[in-house]
């Protein structure tokens, strides 16, 4: 057995389950959903058992991808944290969402590919599995419905190409694209921008409505929600590894500022869209992009607290990615306002604690970062308003199937609600070690010893305050016989009208209306040129040969 083979164990479990599901399904044995779900939970357990007891870094070297570039895997604190980000929502979704046996097998295989993408040690290895996961998801999405794939695929493919280019650029300049082996001088701003573009496109970190939100426009959520859950963390994984590749910093300070501003803009735009959403589903679709903006801001801050906050936010986002598509949409969904407040980040939920930690990182960093943090708080405020309004919106658009699972939503909601109280543990056991992996001479910056999160800017008494709040919030919910107000039929007016509504359509119409003036069309008519070529016009070829002959002898 090659050394470090255990690194591939969690993915192998999922892959084997996929094959088993398909063979069993072909033989008429419909055990897809339970088998896929069990395999995801086993993979999650395996990952924890492999890392948590000894916390020893394990590496596995595979065959050559292309001459000079090996396939490498590495289990360390970073890949463990991101492995959790992929596996936790995947396990919940595979358990509580209805899927056929074919879809369950494909889903298990997709999760395996996504997991390998964050276990991969090197840009090229990551790009292979990231691209494979995207391809598998495309198949599942198109097999169900084509809506939103027209945004999903171009974004993913563009991001993937940018990543491949970044990888080969590092290969050319330094002879390796392995995160932990790239020389500091090799990671230039241009290469980093390619990685950032890949991350932005792959995780939907764009100011306009990203593919992660478009997925919610599909009539059925099970395909899109898995895509969002497993692909969302991978872009951030690249950004975190970029710190390791460049000796604990990004190539230039202005890149930090650029991505920080982008993060805040994303959070604000997402919140603006959320507060004007016509349906509750559209409000929920902005949950993850908004939190993504916060995570991006945290990673851009670049301090130990910033990166820890970013990793923590992603772990919370993983829980949210599972909760959102599981929220019941039927008439019985009376707990909706409570769950919406949870999504918006009301204390003591993890969604609150993660945001607070990001903002504390911003205030602590000082200089302009504090202003970005203040702007992010405004986005948070808009999110609160949106959540309050969303309780009065129709659950889903006409024609969309009701989704959700009361049990699944309950489990995810309790986990997120309790997450605030457990934040100290999450930060000290997962986020801080991951930060130490990529930042040389990190932390110690976050205190609290697992029961609180204390930074120089401020603190959150996770256990001492979070636990009592949790009990005090849960108690009335459990004992009250009061049913919460149901949604009204028609959507209330949004607090803020989106200024750009209709502009996009107008610009699109104008662009489609553009055409070459009549008198110049003959000059730019590829069909005519092609027809001349096809007929083998001697004159055309003679002119071409003459022109080229002159050109090469100039």
């Amino acid at each position, binding site marked *: 057995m090659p050394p470090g083979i255990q690194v591939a164990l969690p993915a192998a479990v999922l892959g084997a389950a996929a094959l088993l599901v398909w063979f069993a399904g072909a033989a008429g044995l419909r055990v897809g959903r339970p088998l896929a779900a069990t395999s995801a939970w086993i993979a999650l357990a395996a990952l924890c058992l492999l890392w948590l007891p000894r916390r020893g870094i394990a590496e596995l070297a595979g065959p050559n991808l292309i001459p000079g570039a090996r396939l490498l895997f590495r289990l360390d604190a970073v890949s463990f944290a991101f492995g959790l980000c992929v596996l936790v929502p995947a396990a919940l979704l595979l358990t509580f969402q209805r899927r056929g046996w074919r879809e369950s097998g494909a889903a298990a295989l997709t999760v395996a590919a996504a997991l390998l993408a964050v276990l991969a040690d090197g840009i090229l290895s990551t790009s292979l599995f990231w691209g494979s996961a995207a391809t598998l998801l495309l198949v599942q999405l198109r097999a169900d419905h084509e809506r939103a794939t027209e945004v999903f695929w171009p974004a993913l493919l563009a991001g993937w190409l940018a990543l491949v280019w970044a990888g080969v650029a590092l290969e050319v300049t330094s002879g390796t694209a392995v995160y932990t082996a790239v020389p500091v001088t090799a990671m230039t701003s241009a290469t980093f921008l390619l990685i950032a573009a890949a991350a932005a496109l792959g995780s939907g970190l764009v100011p306009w409505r990203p593919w992660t939100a478009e997925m919610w426009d599909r009539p059925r959520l099970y395909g899109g929600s898995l895509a969002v859950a497993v692909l969302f963390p991978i872009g951030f994984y690249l950004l975190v590894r970029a710190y390791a590749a460049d000796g604990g910093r990004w190539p230039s300070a202005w890149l930090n500022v650029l991505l920080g501003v982008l993060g805040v803009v994303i959070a604000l735009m997402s919140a603006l869209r959320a507060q004007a959403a016509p349906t509750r589903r559209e409000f929920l679709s902005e949950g993850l992009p908004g939190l993504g903006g916060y995570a991006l801001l945290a990673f851009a801050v670049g301090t130990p607290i910033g990166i820890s906050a970013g990793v923590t936010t992603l772990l919370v986002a993983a829980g949210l990615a599972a909760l959102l598509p599981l929220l019941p949409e039927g008439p019985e969904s009376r707990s909706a306002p409570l769950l919406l407040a949870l999504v918006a*980040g*009301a*204390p003591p939920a993890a969604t609150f604690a993660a945001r607070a930690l990001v903002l504390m990182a911003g205030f602590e960093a000082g200089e302009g970062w504090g202003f970005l943090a203040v702007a992010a708080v405004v986005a948070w405020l808009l999110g609160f*308003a949106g959540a*309050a309004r969303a309780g*009065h919106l129709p659950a889903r658009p006409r024609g969309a199937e009701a989704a959700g699972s009361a049990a699944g939503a309950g489990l995810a909601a309790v986990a997120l609600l309790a997450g605030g109280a457990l934040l100290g543990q999450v930060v000290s056991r997962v986020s801080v070690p991951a930060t130490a992996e990529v930042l040389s001479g990190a932390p110690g910056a976050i205190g609290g010893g697992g029961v609180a999160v204390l930074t120089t800017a*401020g603190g959150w008494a996770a256990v001492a305050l979070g636990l009592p709040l949790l009990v005090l919030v849960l108690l009335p919910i459990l004992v009250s016989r009061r049913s919460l107000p149901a949604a009204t039929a028609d959507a209330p007016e949004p607090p*803020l009208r989106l200024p750009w509504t209709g502009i996009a359509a107008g610009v699109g119409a104008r662009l489609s209306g553009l055409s070459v003036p009549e008198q110049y069309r003959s000059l730019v008519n590829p069909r005519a040129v092609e027809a001349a070529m096809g007929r083998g016009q001697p004159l055309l070829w003679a002119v071409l040969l003459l022109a080229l002959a002159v050109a090469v002898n100039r």
Partner: protein
Amino acid sequence: MPWEDLGAHLLALLIYPGGLAALALGLAAEIGAAWALVPERGGLAEAARGTLRALRLQPMNLAPLAAWAWVLALAAASQLAAPFNRVPPAERNSLVAAAALLGATWLAWSWGWGRRAASPPLVLAVQACWLLAVLLPSLGPGNLRPQALGAVVLGGQVPLKLACGVLYLACLPALLMLLPESAPQGPPGAVARPRTPEEAGFGVLRVLLWMPACGLFTSLFFPSADDALGLLRFLVVTAGAAAVAIAVAANLTRRPAGVTRLLYLRLALPFAGFSVLVAALTVVFIH
């Protein structure tokens, strides 16, 4: 398990400065507000009776939303730099207080959206200004602990603190749901008898909001000390802030409809912009 720490936070949540203390101060302020906003109902005693009638609850028919909002109000109170607050200063955080207050308010709105004369856009604008007033003073020191911010009374921070203090006070009436546009459950004294548990619940919420909302003003802009004089100063300033809020609200409710909106959008928002400018200059020139 940090039992001592847990006890301190429970004390702060349920007794002082949250819980009982918040309820006591809140009731007094609520009665005063009801008397000031609806004087035609009669004197203070009538206002007190009316207020207590409006707050009558049925414990087994509690509204979970309102209950969550109360808890958040108490959580905000526990973060105050109030004298004799048992919560360790290092664990108090104005950001937690602000988030809790916003959460509490919007939980009320998730029930009250579209009720009465409530105007979410106005509340949104006011809360944005209020957030700036709370957070801008933290930019320079890079510290969110209320007592640390309150302790800065001299030096380059003063202009910024002045601007933010004024902005904070201007926003209090809307934040405390004293104005018809900001109170889905109706302003103090407006409701004779609650029709639903939520209406009663969110009435109680306002009672609980007085202490954290006004106390946070005191914590952020005035130094605190764990002695009798410090306690007196805290209570006086907090009550003063409440009084200013009531006075502004009383003034605004007597004016024609739409004036409140106009004043906040035409005065508060530009002033918030000015405060941001002052904060930027402070950061550039002082730090």
